[in-house]
Every structure is written in C-alpha cells, then in structure tokens.
C-alpha cells in the first residue's frame, strides 16, 4: 500500500530547480608577498520535487572550479581537468516521507545535513556530519553525510533517531591540512577508515522540547570523530617516514538550552565526550615505543552565548567556546571568545559585520582573529561582498599557524 502511494505520488512530482553561483577572489597578504589564492568558485544546482503532500525529493550538485590551472608538464596541457581544475560532487540527496507508517513520524533518507545544537555555529553536540573546513575563513561550516533520520513529533517535543552507515571524514582546505591537523613534515601519511561493517556504523538520538520559555534538548551520539589522529609512526631511513592515521571512536552525551530574558537571547550547549583510548605506536630505526595519543577519559566541550539587538539596530552576538572543533582531551581544550557585531543600512541592502575572536590557550598564550565583511545587495538575488580576515597568534596557538593567511576577499553571489 505504501509503495503504491509512493509510486502514485512520484508520477506527480513537479521538479523545480534553484541554486547559486558564487565567484570568490582571495588576496593573501599575511606572508612575505601578496598573492592571489587559488580558491574555488562554486556553482550549486538544486532540484526539489514535492510529490503529493507526503513525499519530497531534494538533490544538489556542487561544482567547484578554480581560476588557476596547475599543469606540471606538457602532457597536462592535453587534459581538460588540468587546464580547468574542478571538483564535482553530490552535495545533498535525500527523500523525505511525512507521516511514514504513523502520522507523527517523518523520515529523511539520504545524504543530508543534520544540524544539532542551539548555540550559534559553535556546536559541541553537532557531531553527526563532518566539519567542512574547505573554506578556511568559514571554518564553522559542516558538510552533509549519508544518514537515515526519523523524527517523531509530540505536542511540543520531538524525538529524533539517526543511523549513519559509516563515517564521512572532515573536509580540509586544498593544500591546507596543516591549518587544522598540524604540520606532518616530510611524512607520507596513510589514512585508515573503519571497515564498512554494521558494527562500525554510527547512531544518535535526540529529544528536544520546551518547558515554559525554555527550549532544550538532550542527545546521545555513538560514532567516530571525523578528524583523524596519528596511530602509527615509522621512521626507517632511507625510506620515506610514514605516519598512519585513524578516526577515534567516541560517544557524546549532549544537552543544550535557549531562552530569552528581557530581550536578550541566551543559550548554552555542552557535549561530554567519551573517547576510546588511542595509542601511537612509533617505530624508529627498529626501536618501537607506545604513547597514549588520546586518553579514554571524558572531557567536556561547551559554548555559552547570548545576543541582543540594540534599539539603534546594532546586533551583538557573543559566545564563549571551550574546545575548538579539532581539540581533544581535557588537557588540550582551549578557549575562544567571539564577539560579532552587525548593522544593516538602507533597508538591509548593506550589511556590515565584524567578528572578533580571542583565542586563549591554556590561559597563557593568546591569539586574535578579526573578520570583517561588507555585503551589498544591489538587486534581488545578487550579493556582493568585500571583507578581510586578519589573524595574529602567539607561538603555540591555533591562530599562530594561520598568521600567514591574512587575506582580503571579494565575492559575488547570484541565487536563482
């Protein structure tokens, strides 16, 4: 009966197409000389097809293309992909069924983004999808991954269950893995993904609802960290040094809450991480040793924040994040204080945004990042942006490793 319904509804599906084209230029000024980064431009084509009242299909194709070719030899000039470098992927592709088996149960199956957590972009409970660091400036982005999600709706509450057949690793910036994983030096690296068995699949649950003026959720995640960790190191000259990396298994117990007090939005979100122990086995000229890379001790990441709109229209958003996306283990959690100011002008045609981030490493070393952007929406669907991303950091801070990437950017985006 259900299949009959699906078949009938699919024949009535009316697809519509939408998407955007974004052209992006980055001028890197942080090093000894200024250069134009070979950053990607992006064309996203989305197809959505509601089929009846209970079925919905959505797919999006993501084409990233680069300005500068990268030929290494004459033979590269014979290849289109070398002359015009590009990457094509299915970004999202899912089917929604509303009222699946029960009126109050909706399911979404396929490649999808599942955004958990009520903090603003800095979400320690948002662990189902991988981090998308491909745009280094927008490091809070997340990428979709394949999942089966069911949401059961109650009066003012929801129970969500998610099963992910396997891990999707972090997306790193092109030629920029060191920005987030540290410098591996001259090592050859080898990445070991978990075997594709049901035992290695991932699952999560979340209950969210409201009590009086408070919205809250509690969640549980059992899966993998999408950021790899070194597990084996082999140095045996004259062979190239070798490093092997794996993805640590972990559980995360999460909770978040948001409310509004006297016009101030207030939120808090925390994830208690329960990792499995990870050891690094080193083999240097035949001498082997073991050291613990990640203890199996629980550690807590959290974000506390609030926002407020002043009567003159200035929007203030401030957050304290304990534990960056790549931080692991109690000893390694650093603190980040973020203040964002926004003001729009000319009926939202112009928006000026200023992001200040202070990194406090072990309450000793400091780093500071300033990101400012002016966007102008001259006509509907066209947005032009001009901005800068400036970073400074003391030795040992995350921002210190980003210092040479101070940049000015210009971008144009058209939605259709």
């Amino acid at each position, binding site marked *: 009966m259900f299949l009959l319904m699906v078949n009938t509804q699919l024949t009535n599906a009316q697809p519509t197409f*939408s998407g*955007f084209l974004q052209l992006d230029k980055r001028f890197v000024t942080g090093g000894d000389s200024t250069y134009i980064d070979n950053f990607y431009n992006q064309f996203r084509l989305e197809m*959505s097809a*509601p089929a009846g009242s209970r079925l*919905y299909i*959505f797919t999006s194709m993501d084409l990233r293309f680069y300005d500068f070719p990268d030929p290494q030899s004459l033979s590269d000039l014979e290849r289109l992909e070398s002359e015009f470098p590009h990457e094509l992927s299915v970004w999202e592709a899912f089917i*929604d069924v*509303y009222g699946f088996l029960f009126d109050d149960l*909706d399911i979404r199956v396929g490649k*999808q*983004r*599942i*955004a958990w957590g*009520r903090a603003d972009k800095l979400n320690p409970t948002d662990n189902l999808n991988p981090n998308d660091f491909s745009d280094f400036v927008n490091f809070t982005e997340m990428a979709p991954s394949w999942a089966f999600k069911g*949401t059961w*709706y109650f009066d003012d509450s*929801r129970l969500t269950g998610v099963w992910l057949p396997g891990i999707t690793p972090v997306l790193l910036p092109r030629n920029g893995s060191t920005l987030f994983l540290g410098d591996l030096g001259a090592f050859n690296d080898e990445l070991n993904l978990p075997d594709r068995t049901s035992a290695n699949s991932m699952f999560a649950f979340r209950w969210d609802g*409201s009590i009086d*003026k408070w*919205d809250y959720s509690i969640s549980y995640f059992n899966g993998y960290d999408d950021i790899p960790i070194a597990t084996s190191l082999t140095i045996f000259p004259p062979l190239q040094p070798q490093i092997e990396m794996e993805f640590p298994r972990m559980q995360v117990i999460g909770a978040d809450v*948001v409310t*509004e007090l*006297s*016009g*101030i*939005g207030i939120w808090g979100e925390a994830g208690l991480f329960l990792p499995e122990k990870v050891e690094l086995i080193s083999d240097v000229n035949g001498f082997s040793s073991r050291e613990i890379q990640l203890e199996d001790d629980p550690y807590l990441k959290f974000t506390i924040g609030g*926002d*407020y*709109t002043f*009567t003159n*229209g200035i*929007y203030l958003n401030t957050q304290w994040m304990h534990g960056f996306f790549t931080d692991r283990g109690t000893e390694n959690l650093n603190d980040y204080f973020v203040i964002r100011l926004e003001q729009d002008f*000319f*009926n*939202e*045609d112009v928006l000026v945004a200023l992001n200040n981030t202070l990194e406090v490493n072990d309450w000793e070393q400091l780093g500071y990042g300033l990101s400012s952007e002016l966007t102008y929406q001259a*006509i*509907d*669907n066209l*947005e032009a942006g001009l901005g800068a991303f400036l970073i400074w950091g003391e030795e040992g801070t995350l921002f210190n490793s980003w210092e040479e990437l101070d940049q000015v950017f210009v971008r144009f985006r058209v*939605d*259709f």
Partner: protein
Amino acid sequence: MKLFKYILSLNLLLIVFITLPAVGQSPDQILAKIDSVQNAFSDMSATEQMKLIDEENRVKKRVVEIKQKGKELRMVRFREPADVRGVGFLRLDSDRLYLYLPAFRKVRRIASLATNENFMGTDFTYEDMSQSVYADDYTARELSTQQGQYRLFLEPKPSADVNYHHLVILADTSNYVLRKVEFYDREEEKIKELTIDNIEKIDGYWMGKTMRMVSLDENHKTVLELSDIQFDQGLSDSEFSDRSLKRPIR
C-alpha cells in the same frame, strides 16, 4: 406642548445615535471592536506579494505565504526571491519567535527585542507582523470621528513589551475595519505609516487586500497585496510548529 417637546427631544437623540455611532462607546470599546473585526476568523491563510520600494523607486519583490490562527499563532514563509526561498518565521506566542534558515537546516529562536528589527528588508518589523490584538498591549485614550473614521490614540500598557511610544489608528465607523496606523517612536516622532485599502468582505469577513507601510525617515515603503485568501479551514496547531516550518515550501 410638553409632549411635542418630548417627542422632538427623542427624535433628536435618535438622530444623534444613528449618525454618530461613537457616542456612548469608550475608546477601549471601539478598539475592542476593531480587534474583533481583525480577528473574527478562527484561522486564515493567504499569499502576499510584497514590493519593497526605495526612495529612487527601485523595486524589490517578495512573495510570502502567511498563515494565522487565533491571536497568537502566525507563520510566514518566503517563496521568492530565490536567495530567501524557504526562509520561515514562526510565532507561537509573544515570547517564542523562531526563524528557519534553510541554508543551515536550522530553526533559530529570536530574542523578543529583535522584534524592532525589520523583517527581511521590508518596512514591517517582527513586532508589526506579530501584532494582532491591539488591546492586549495598548490602551485607547482619545477618540474623535472624522470623515467616517474613528481616530484612536493608543498608549502602551505599562506591562507591554512594545517598541513604539504610541500609535494612532483609524478605522471605518461603518464596519470597524482598520484603515490606517501611524507609528511613533520614543521621541514621539511619527516614523511609519500603514494604510490599508482595497477592503472586501470575503466569506463574511472584512479584509484589506492592500497594505502600504511607509518608513518616513528613509522614504522607503513596502506594498503588500493579498491573494488566495482563505478563512476557517480548520488549521490545526501542528501547522504552526517546528515540523511545518522546516518542511520544504511547495
């Protein structure tokens, strides 16, 4: 002779009562009637075509779907333009406002003070869009009648969480349909003016199908045209929920 005077007086009184319906009604009673006309239906849905017109007469267009039930429940979802398609606004009560941003697949709660912010570039603030029962937040103080319209001065109640110093509203004396709202800021300057035209009786309910909100300082205006208006469809509370907000727009 006494009888003649009595009949004459009675006739004069009758004439006064017929021609001046306001007599005998307090400003708050008039406001209650205006509110009841505005909220006579149990639920309503419509499509709004919005034109955002700047001082150089450049026009931006928006198309939104609106749903409303009772005094509290409101949902607004954008169909056009493409860069905001699917963006949704949900009001469960005055303290629980939510914004859905499809690009992030996330519903975000909005703090109530953000209600003084304009909604998606229009001249309507979140507060303007949420206001349905004026008597909940305002006390009507003065009353005059001119050119077939009541004119009321609305002063915020001490407990009201509103961003205006006061409002002046005008409504037709014949049917209590709201025709104009003037918005005054804390400096008591008139900053915006809403006019409601193209009044029609649809399914027994009075409805202004054209609304024009002008921001006087910025010389910017938003013109709303309502179409596909449907009343009393029996919308359930679940139509005003996180679940509905996140569903793709059709």
